[in-house]
């Protein structure tokens, strides 16, 4: 491995200006920096945990597709993770001289603000959407706004505004579109392939140069906190005030963000965000599309990674159960040593995973269901979107020629201390004719597999009941019924 050079500052563009910071606390958030250091107070704090969107800003990053602007939650985005990006806040929006930006003017004219506190965040989310999709559908707007709460308007006015933006201006003529080449050139000029190290002793952050550099650093400093999208770690800081130094920022890291696919397997680098994984996964494994659309809000999906969702070991993470049901495997790496294990075995117990000190999650390999193999995943939450799972069931099924169950894998989240297979249920199905009667018998087996807990998301009783009913839903869906088998947001009434 070539020696990497080391830089002791981060460089990015804030609105119009280049910023160079050589003193950055590892836990400094972008929101505090904007509001306190830069006195840019258009960006608001509503929750400091990524759920309300009042702090939404755009971050432009260089990627294979060029320069992409994505909405993110400034409250849980660490300042130290912004190297080489273009941060755009509400203060940067411009229209024709003396005029508001089209997004802003539409919001004004359609009465999209009442108290106005959520408004800058909505403006930024809509701006991000409009740049990509100038004439969005209702569903696209709702999706883009899943991470923005408004307590005043009831959203209707905001939806009307969102539909009207393009009548106020052309996305192609937007300053960020017009200046794109120049910004890209400025960002490219910042890329020197160096590792960044800032701070010392108790407050230290590192941005590795690439995945090999990361492996080497972590091997030497196994106690460091790995931060990918910071959609979990951000809250450790803002809510629990945990000390996370030294921090290794691996978001957008070279060598960790690739997706590769062949006939039967999709391999996803641990640093791939939900957003970046979406099109491949939703194309190849269609049942994952609607699930991914219900993970967090747009800002969280733009930051959060599948690797982080697995590595955090949470029993209510949404990707492990479907990936387990699909038979996914996980590659772990320590220094230059790699091992690949069934994802299922990674989760040992609550808070305990099969990951050695100095080891990190490098990639997950997801088998694509073949023709005839059935796969579905259902997430149950209190609120449909941007809510954490109460119970989530994933089902993979292969039928034999004679209509009996040849292979079945069922995995649940929210039902145990880890993402967990329903092995007793599977056993009751295996080899049996795939009929409602069999399903009915198998439903009685759930009590063997799971003794869920009661908490603020759901009672044990509800979890148990809803979880087993999902098997019936799967049966109905798998029979190819035309009748509705679940309620749906996107189909017209």
């Amino acid at each position: 491995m070539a020696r990497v050079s080391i830089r002791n500052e981060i460089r990015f563009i804030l609105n119009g200006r280049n910023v160079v910071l050589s003193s950055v606390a590892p836990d400094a958030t972008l929101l505090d920096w904007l509001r306190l250091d830069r006195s840019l107070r258009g960006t608001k704090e509503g929750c400091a945990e990524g759920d309300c969107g009042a702090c939404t800003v755009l971050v432009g990053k260089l990627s294979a597709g060029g320069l992409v602007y994505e909405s993110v939650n400034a409250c849980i985005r660490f300042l130290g993770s912004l190297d080489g990006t273009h941060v755009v806040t509400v203060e940067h929006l411009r229209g024709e001289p003396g005029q508001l930006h089209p997004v802003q003017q539409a919001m004004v004219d359609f009465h999209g603000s009442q108290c106005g506190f959520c408004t800058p965040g909505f403006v930024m989310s809509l701006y991000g959407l409009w740049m990509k999709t100038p004439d969005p559908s209702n569903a696209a707007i709702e999706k883009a706004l899943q991470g923005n709460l408004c307590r005043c308007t009831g959203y209707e006015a905001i939806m009307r505004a969102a539909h009207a933006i393009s009548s106020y201006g052309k996305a192609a003529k937007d300053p960020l579109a017009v200046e794109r080449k120049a910004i890209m050139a400025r960002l490219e000029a910042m890329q020197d392939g160096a590792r960044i190290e800032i701070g010392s002793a108790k407050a230290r952050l590192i941005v590795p140069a690439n995945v090999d550099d990361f492996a080497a650093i972590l091997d030497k400093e196994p106690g460091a906190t790995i931060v990918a999208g910071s959609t979990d770690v951000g809250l450790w800081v803002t809510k629990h005030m945990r000390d996370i130094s030294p921090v290794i920022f691996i978001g957008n890291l070279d060598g960790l963000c690739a997706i590769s696919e062949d006939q039967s397997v999709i391999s996803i680098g641990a640093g791939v965000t939900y957003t970046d994984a979406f099109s491949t996964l939703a194309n190849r494994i269609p049942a994952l599309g609607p699930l991914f659309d219900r993970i967090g809000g747009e800002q969280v999906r733009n930051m959060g990674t599948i690797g982080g969702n697995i590595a955090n070991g949470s029993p209510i993470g949404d990707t492990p159960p479907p990936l387990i049901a699909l038979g996914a495997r996980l590659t772990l790496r320590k220094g230059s040593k790699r091992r690949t294990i069934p994802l299922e075995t990674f989760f040992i117990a609550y808070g305990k995973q099969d990951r050695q000190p100095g080891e990190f999650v490098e990639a997950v390999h997801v088998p694509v269901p073949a023709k005839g193999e059935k796969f579905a995943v259902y997430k149950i939450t209190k609120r449909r979107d941007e809510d954490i799972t109460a119970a989530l069931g994933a089902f993979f099924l292969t039928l034999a020629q004679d209509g009996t169950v040849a292979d079945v894998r069922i995995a649940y989240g929210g039902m145990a201390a880890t993402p967990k297979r329903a092995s007793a249920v599977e056993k009751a199905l295996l080899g049996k004719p795939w009929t409602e009667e069999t399903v009915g018998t198998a439903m009685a087996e759930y009590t063997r597999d799971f003794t869920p807990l009661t908490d603020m998301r759901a009672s044990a009783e509800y979890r148990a009941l809803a979880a087993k009913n999902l098997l019936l839903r799967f049966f109905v869906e798998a029979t190819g019924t035309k009748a509705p088998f679940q309620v749906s947001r996107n189909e017209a009434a």
Partner: protein
Amino acid sequence: MNKHATSNLKAEKIAGGVATDQRHDSAHKHVSGAAVYIDDMPEPAGTLHVGLGLSKVAHGTLKSVDISAVRSAPGVVDVLTYADVPGENDVSPSGMHDDPVLAEGKVQFFGQPIFAVIAETRDAARRAARLAKIEYDEIPAILGIWPLDPVTDRLVTTPLTLRRGDAAAAIAAAPRRVKGRMKLGGQDHFYLEGQVSLAVPGEDDEVTVYCSTQGPSETQHLVSHALGVPSHAVTVEVRRMGGGFGGKETQANQCAAIAAIAAKKLKRAVKVRLDRDEDMTATGKRHDFAIDYEVGFDDEGNILGVDFMFALNAGFSADLSGPVGDRALFHCDNAYFYPNVHAKSAPLYTNTVSNTAFRGFGGPQGMIGAERIIDEVAFAVGKDPLEIRKLNFYDPMEAIGRRNVTPYHQKVEDNIIQRIVAELEESANYPRRRREIQAFNANSRFIKRGLALTPVKFGISFTKTESNQAGALVHVYADGSVHMNHGGTEMGQGLHLKVAQVVAEEFQIDLERVKITATTTAKVPNTAPTAASSGADLNGMAAQNAARQIRQRLTDFAAERYQVPVDQVVFLPNRVRVGNQEVSFNDLVRQAYIARVQLSAAGFYKTPKIHWDRGKGQGHAFYYYAYGAACAEVSVDTLTGEYVVERADILHDCGRSLNRAIDIGQVEGGFIQGMGWLTTEELWWDDKGRLRTHAPSTYKIPLASDRPKIFNVALTDWSQAYEPTIHRSKAVGEPPLPHGMSVLHALSDAVASVADHKICPRLDAPATPERVLMAIERLKKEVKSGA
């Protein structure tokens, strides 16, 4: 910007008068991030920040409070406890002295503030606050009202009883009777801007508090009590709030007091801004209720007698729980005439946060009791609940017979609910959709549809009579521009805009000539909180009164100067016709100034007619009523309880709307907020009394994707206030919120379909997917057991 030259002197109408659609005055600032909230103001040099130390038990005495580690933490300047409160350690709005600024000797709920760290940065203050070592002697805690007895258990304040006729006898004699109990959850305000105050010390005993408060006068008074100084030493100012919804009516006062105490003690500016978790844990919410009801009725579904007990969770102190319980009783009839009624409130003491005002102020809870009764009657007699509703409405205003007296003995004189419901039934195609849904459900195994149409009648006025007053201050400057100030506060509802429209209308000048300014106790004293939907009604009238005084002076001056009779001075758009000539408004003002005419006036208004005898439970409690109705349709998954709102139609009465654009926003937003309360917003305490839904990650208010897929909102364009309100408009802040009931009842209707509409689902709220599924299961079991 020089707008001076732009006034159109030929205009037929001014730009921005009353009854025109205007955009929110701050909209352009909201969208550009330029609107300044308290936390956005540039801090004075040396500003300190506060972190709160909160109780970790629900009930206990404070055995020891060791804050030495807090004091020595980096950046900490001081730590305040109750002993540092120079005046009274109390911010109780009820005068009951039961709301300490900082806990003294004991704590009464999990999350009660015990001490306040003052540090150089907010981060340092928050970190240091965690270092305290506090020992408690725990006392058994009352963690909810469900197991309590509303008659014998401890109350925080005197309950109210309403009585008309003989309910017990009527129920006993009725051909049919039903009795039941309903559980109704509370609601967090979730204003997007949390509680925040910035106190800047002044000379002598002066202090200015910039506070996100709906009641600047109340904040001023309580801060002065806590400081032990006269009210004149304290100025409270607020330009705008990032949402209030009642949550900043009294709940802003504690932070304001802490900031002011620290600022005076340390002689530096001090800011308190609560973290969302702290805000949700330590400040009050909408009251959860347990509603016991019994109703007697005939085979047709005519209600004959009703008995209610409204037990509400006051929390550990009185706060506004007394009046909230009262308003629940005032609305326990919703739009229905009860020939005999007995209703009682019970504001129960518990060891949870002290609950407070929330949009509707108990009214929605009262209405939900009424609608539950309607459901019970409908299922008992086997009719569509809508039929039962229509059967029991108060007499319409054009045909008042004997069915128009409320449980508090006020006559309903302005009832238009029949017409509203009839129009909505038609525009929403209720009968046709009822049939379609029946057919759909018959053919759909797992997904069931439900439909409901619910009415709203909402009483307008504070029931505390002295709150029904308002002041305003209007200056006309020599250039003809106008400075407008009043006692109301802006929290997004467009109040300032509406009042400015009123002032523009009086002077007949374009709206942009009227400057909206921050609410401050230094300009208008002794104001009511902006609450009870009364903002525009009261302050609009007060501002109109101020403007009229000045206009009268201008008229007299013009008449004299131009030697014409007073009635020949007519205010036209941006100009004044004096006899045969026209003078621009600006010129007339200039002339008046030179002639030394006073161009400033303080306006005042008090609501006429109202009176209320709480002891007797009788009076003319409300100046008038606002009406409306909503029709909602839902789809429910009977395997999981998940649902979506397919469609909602609302027809709402704002009288002669001052600004339809603003009012429609209030109706849409109110409906969604009401729906959230009754569906996904669940407050969940663990067995230690700790609120576990203390952040948006766990407390789920509606998102854009929770809106009805089809959402039609209309205002009654034919109605006007029966009383001479400001331009015959009606209050709109609270009345639309209970339209969310239509969703609860549509869910209930869908649930009922699993038992062929034979069993009343008794669906409690919030109707989370879990509650919906459990209700479905219960009904299925009852069907099976042949009940």
